[in-house]
């Protein structure tokens, strides 16, 4: 992978390079007509002759990669006539097994077309150009260069950084990730003596004990982890087993919401809990069978002291001991190094190291430097050592700790260059602006979390004329005409052309890093034990800061799909809130939506309050990533005015370098608002856009479930709720031909919302904005309902249930439509004819599942920016104002496949049509297919004893979407409430 091989540029030796042509094609056909965009570089090839591989109207799929916090994940991008319109996981890629994805990956396509993206080069206030930048890059910009960028694993960039260091010995590189947690590396360094990357293997774990770790939601391994976790929760017969999940946490996370046993505790209590677990295992050390157990005997008696443990810990210890080598203890990355070491120690004792937990060398370049963040840069700025500051993509003025005072230090750099997709606070403080490129516009590479080299290839020319980081660094290296594709090909020069094209086709070059062989340091274990023993649980209010479940740290910018997506747990869209337990809210006398001031030391922020069930008491949970002042949205509507504001409130001002996550001794009080003479008083409360206000199922048979044991005793426990309803008329339809149906496994659904965004992307579903979201007018065709199960707050679950059109055989919506706009198709779909709909909404009133959505306004405005029009899926009608819409089972995909099959004169086979939600699901919880074929997976799932139709026994609607009841695997010792 050395860049020194001189190699001719691949694209030039073919007269018509497929990829090059497509690029030009995309640019020629679509960019040419765009008034808002810069005219494309180079020559435009008119569409006079149809290229060999392009069939108009037929989408093409390319493999590429998306980089998240330095790690690559595999992407398959669909291109319709040169416009990328949909992204999904690459099923062959180790980071996205089975092709699942995460909401932010699904939504990344919107970033590409975001009309707010920066276009054009700028120097100071003046428009500039790449040519002028290249000139400066060879001269003044090379002086005392400091580069601030996100973490990277890209072999290409790493090689370039190396060469820059050779050429410019005084160049300094800073790697900055606001979500990075130094304590994790610190723990690893103490335990094993060097930086490492920890990997969990949920597919091998039978007992999972998560301590403040939301492994299903925390990037960058989440898609893989969710997939592996679900593999061990999938139950198809009474003989199948499933893993048991214990979660101790303060907030309700994706994993905690599904936990078989959950312990409410504040994040600061985690270390003590781990210690008491260790003590409990110490008491039963005779049962330890692992090879390492002997070595640790000396240490354990120390741990055996202390008070009687929580029954939860005792049960967990027994469970872990009975599944040695197949258990897994995780400590969240926010936890202090001691907790990390204790978790490693527990895994070592229980023989899990090397089984369910493995290690590799770090994948990120100079991973240990990430721990320091922007601190060294601030110091260098203060000392006046910075000649040129090149910022690539990150926005430290928004997300760096406040005490660094970067906004005052930044001007101390003589020359400041910013490159990114959007203008933001940092870019506005920089004189040079080089528009960045989206991953669908660039050539590049990166490594997946297991070390697999993944390639980024563009599907479209940069819409806004941007340049990739590799091209910018190459310019600084003196390249006169940096070209991403050449740079990348050169760095893989040792690959022959055929292998290279194959790699591009697959999107990655297989080959994971080998597992590291390690030994846990006894001293570190002892030190951690004694340190953990001395920590006392903090008093008072504790503040816990977390990356947001949807937008992470806000690094993906202003993505309306993600802003509007309801939070998977709180169901809050368009903003964040100070989350507290209902008991704490009551104790403090605060109500939902009330504006509160959360302070820690001399820092404070003002945001609305939201009570969240299942949270630990006297804990405030805050989510990062919101309130970026560079991205404004419609916020409030007066009678004749509209207010623009950043969505949500930034929590970054509360953070410091020392205490980025967990702050004890915080305070919270109702914000009364400042009284300013002559101005109207500041509001003291706000309306929260909560998509689901009721989590109580009211004991209705909607989300059915049982314990694993009860299921084994009575496999058809759902039966009374899935009876045939007596009917005077019989079935209204007599079907011939293929019939479609869907099965949703509630046991493997983790409620991540990937399907929601995938559906939005596939079906051109509009966003409604914050104002309409507060009124309950979200347009998502599929939503993830959450229902609370479990009596006590201590041991509750908040279970997800994806809800979309159920395609009832006896559809209540069909008979009430006065104009026949919703009708039954011969293959059993409940169809919606938009052109015929006059918008009485009678169908919605009569839909017991309330899955129909109404265009209260012209959400898909005709005058939307041209780029957003490019995003639309050409196979799906864009709905105007005043019509109802709903899930169609991706009818466009069904009809497309049927046409394809008819051309080939064959029968359509099951598996040829996969709905967008099914493809996106990281845990394969959604299965769609032919129910007319008894051998199809969906037919087999429908035939399972756990399969039921929601409200079937009550209304007899005979839904075609059926659910597999949820199963819980409680520890008999803890005697769950079922």
């Amino acid at each position, binding site marked *: 992978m050395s860049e020194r091989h001189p190699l001719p540029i691949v694209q030039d030796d073919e007269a018509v390079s497929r990829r090059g042509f497509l690029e030009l094609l995309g640019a020629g056909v679509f960019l040419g007509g765009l008034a808002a965009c810069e005219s494309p570089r180079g020559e435009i090839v008119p569409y006079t002759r149809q290229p060999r591989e392009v069939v108009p109207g037929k989408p093409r799929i390319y493999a590429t990669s998306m980089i998240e916090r330095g790690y690559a994940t595999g992407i398959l991008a669909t291109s319709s006539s040169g416009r990328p319109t949909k992204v999904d996981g690459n099923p062959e890629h180790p980071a996205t097994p089975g092709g699942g994805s995460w909401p932010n990956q699904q939504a990344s396509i919107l970033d590409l077309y975001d009309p707010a993206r920066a276009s054009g080069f700028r120097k100071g206030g003046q428009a500039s150009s790449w040519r002028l930048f290249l000139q400066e890059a060879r001269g003044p910009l090379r002086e005392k260069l400091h580069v601030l960028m996100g973490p990277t694993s890209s072999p290409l960039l790493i090689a370039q950084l190396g060469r820059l260091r050779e050429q410019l010995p005084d160049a300094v590189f800073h790697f900055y990730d606001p979500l990075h947690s130094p304590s994790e590396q610190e723990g690893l360094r103490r335990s094993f003596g060097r930086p490492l990357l920890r990997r969990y293997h949920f597919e091998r774990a039978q007992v999972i004990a998560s301590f403040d770790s939301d492994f299903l939601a925390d990037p960058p391994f989440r898609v893989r982890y969710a997939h592996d976790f679900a593999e061990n929760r999938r139950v198809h017969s009474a003989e199948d087993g499933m893993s048991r999940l214990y979660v101790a946490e303060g907030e309700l996370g994706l994993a905690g919401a599904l936990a078989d046993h959950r312990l409410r505790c504040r994040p600061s209590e985690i270390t003590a809990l781990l210690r008491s677990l260790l003590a409990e295992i110490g008491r039963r050390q005779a049962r330890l069978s692992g090879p390492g157990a002997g070595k640790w005997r000396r240490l354990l008696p120390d741990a055996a002291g202390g008070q009687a443990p929580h029954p939860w810990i005792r049960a967990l210890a027994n469970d872990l001991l009975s599944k040695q080598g197949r258990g897994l203890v995780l400590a969240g990355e926010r936890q202090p190094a001691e907790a990390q070491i204790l978790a490693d120690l527990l895994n070592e004792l229980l023989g899990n190291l090397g089984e369910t937990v493995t290690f590799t060398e770090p994948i990120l370049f100079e991973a240990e430097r990430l721990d320091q963040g922007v601190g060294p840069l601030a110091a260098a700025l203060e000392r006046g050592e910075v000649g040129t500051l090149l910022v690539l993509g990150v926005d430290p003025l928004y997300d760096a700790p406040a005490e660094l005072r970067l906004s005052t230090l930044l001007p101390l750099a003589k020359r400041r260059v910013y490159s990114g997709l959007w203008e933001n606070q940092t870019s506005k403080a920089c004189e040079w602006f080089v528009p960045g490129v989206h991953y669908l516009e660039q050539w590049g590479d990166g490594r997946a979390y297991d070390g697999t080299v993944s390639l980024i290839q563009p599907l479209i020319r940069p819409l806004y004329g941007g340049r990739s980081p590799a091209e910018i660094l190459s310019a600084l290296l003196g390249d006169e005409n940096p070209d991403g594709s050449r740079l990348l090909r050169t760095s893989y020069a040792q690959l022959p052309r055929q292998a290279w094209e194959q790699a591009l086709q697959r999107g990655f070059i297989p080959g994971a890093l080998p597992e590291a062989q390690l030994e846990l340091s006894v001293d570190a274990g002892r030190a951690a034990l004694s340190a953990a023993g001395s920590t006392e649980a903090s008093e008072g209010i504790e503040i816990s800061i977390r990356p947001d479940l949807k937008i992470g740290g806000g690094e993906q910018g202003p993505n309306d799909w993600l802003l509007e997506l309801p939070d998977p747990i709180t169901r809050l869209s368009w903003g964040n809130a100070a989350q507290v337990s209902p008991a704490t809210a009551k104790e403090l006398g605060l109500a939902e939506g009330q504006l509160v001031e959360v302070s820690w030391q001399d820092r404070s922020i003002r945001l609305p309050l939201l009570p969240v069930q299942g949270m630990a008491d006297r804990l405030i949970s805050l989510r990062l990533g919101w309130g970026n002042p560079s991205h404004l949205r419609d916020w409030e509507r007066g*009678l004749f005015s509209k207010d623009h504001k950043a969505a949500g409130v930034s929590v970054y001002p509360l953070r410091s370098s020392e205490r980025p996550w967990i702050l004890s001794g915080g305070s919270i009080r109702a914000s009364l608002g400042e009284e300013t003479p002559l101005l109207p008083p500041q509001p003291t409360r706000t309306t929260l856009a909560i998509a*689901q*206000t*009721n*989590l*109580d*199922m*009211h*004991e*209705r048979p*909607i989300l059915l479930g049982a314990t694993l044991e009860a299921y084994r005793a009575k496999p058809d426990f759902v039966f009374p709720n899935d009876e045939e309803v007596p009917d005077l008329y019989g079935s209204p339809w007599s079907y011939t031909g293929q019939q479609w149906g869907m099965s949703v496994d509630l046991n493997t659904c983790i409620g991540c919302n990937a399907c929601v965004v995938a559906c939005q992307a596939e079906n051109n579903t509009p966003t409604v904005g914050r104002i*309409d979201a507060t*009124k*309950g*007018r*979200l347009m998502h065709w599929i*939503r993830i*309902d*959450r*229902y609370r199960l479990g009596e006590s707050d201590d041991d509750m679950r908040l279970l997800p*249930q994806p*809800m979309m059109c159920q395609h009832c055989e006896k559809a*209540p919506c069909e*008979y*009430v*439509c*006065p*104009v*026949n706009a919703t009708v039954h198709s011969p293959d059993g779909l409940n169809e919606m004819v938009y052109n*015929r*709909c*006059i*918008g*009485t*909404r*009678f169908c*919605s*009133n*009569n839909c*017991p*599942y*309330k899955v*129909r*959505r*109404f*265009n*209260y*306004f*012209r959400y898909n405005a005709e005058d939307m920016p041209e780029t957003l029009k490019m995003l639309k899926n050409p196979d799906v009608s864009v709905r105007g*104002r*005043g*019509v*109802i819409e709903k899930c169609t089972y991706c009818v466009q995909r069904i009809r497309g496949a049927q046409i394809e099959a008819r051309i080939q004169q064959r029968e359509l086979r099951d598996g040829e049509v996969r709905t967008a939600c099914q493809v996106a699901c990281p845990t394969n919880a959604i299965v769609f297919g032919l129910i007319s074929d008894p051998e199809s997976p969906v037919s087999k799932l429908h035939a399972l004893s756990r399969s039921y139709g*929601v*409200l079937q026994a*009550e*209304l007899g609607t005979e839904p075609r979407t059926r659910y597999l009841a949820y199963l819980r695997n409680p520890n008999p010792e803890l005697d769950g409430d079922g």
Partner: protein
Amino acid sequence: MAETIDLRHVSPEYAKAVDEPSILLTRAPEGELTARLLAPAFQGGPSWKLAFLITGGGTLFAWTVILYSVLAGIGTWGNNMPVAWAFAITNFVWWIGIGHAGTFISAVLLILEQTWRNSINRFAEAMTIFAVIQAAIYPALHLGRPWFAYWILPYPSTMGVWPNYRSALPWDAAAISTYFTVSLLFWYMGMLPDLASARDAAPTLLKRRLYGIFAMGWRGSSRNWRHYQITCLLLGALATPLVLSVHSVVSFDFAITQLPGWHSTIFPPYFVAGAIYSGFAMVLTLMIPVRRIFRLHDIITTRHLEAMAKMILVTGSVLYYTYAVETFISWYSGNEYEFYQIVVWRLSGPFAWAVWTVYVLNFVCPNLMWFKRVRTSPIWLFVISILINVAMWLERFELIVASLASDFLPSSWRNFTPTFIDGSIFLGTICFFLFLFLLFLRFVPFISISETKEIRHILVSEEERLERSGHARRTDR
């Protein structure tokens, strides 16, 4: 006066008319009566202008807001998902309900030979027509694409799409348009002799011509009268079943669904009773001030007030019986969704204030009518009629909105908050209604002159006969 008459010796019509108290107190000569009842049509005045200015301004405002909501979309209203129907449908049902009393008075009472209807039927029928006009605005306006409202009608279309007759909405369109047509014809038909009188008495040529056109050549010949009476009877017979059918069909909009709170077989009688109840209340609301302003106490007598109060008592009793049955059945059926909706949610949910107001007002108001003092007191009746109108609006509101706000899946429950536009359109249609009603009062003989004279004729001729035979003596005039 009446106690002096021995009812054994009089004709039954006379007995019915003078029965405690009499339906007509004046015995003025016919010409005088005609002139007196035609007078408002020929004289304006500053207070008329002011009244037209206020209601006309309100109407203009209403149409501006309606135009805005058509241009911008009904997102300007408070509706959401799941509460997809709210103010518009509430107002629609309310207005249609109000419309019922007019036809009931003019048609059903005609068939039943209740002569007391004669002096108020024109007035009530006009109220019906104007209320149905208000009601008709809403179903079209509440559509997502109001410009396609006509798709609901069965017309030969090149698209080949026919309305779906399994849905109650095309039934609605048919029922209401039929009702409106028949009511309008009936009203206009009954007005012909009076328009002719107005033509004959009109002070200016223009008025004479205009009334002449609308009088359609009425000459008052016996042939005219014969055809007139047959037609009125036929139209009355045609309109009578419509009184029952229209609100039954409106109730099907709700009853054919499976939404708890809507899905109920008691809805048709319940809605009809509620409609007549609210309609009579609205007649009282309008009639009591008109009677006072135009000094019509001798033509619209206490007898009329009492008769209407009794109707309110009857229909109101049906109504609160229905409330009781609805609540009982929701428990007796053992259906948890029904029970939750009708008992738990309605009585203690976020709309409980509306539900309790309805239950209290609709119980107390009709039951006050047991007292003769209340029945005969214009003040009491006026206040009660206003309260009934408020209660009936709230009843439709909680029925529609509260049921939608909590259906089967608790995940989609959501409350409803109206917007400024919602309120403006409602108030606007009230102004529009009053504007049309004032036009009617100002330009059309609003008391049926010929029918009043008919009663006078019955009374005077019988009294003269009695006087001749010495059975009684006239006490008045």
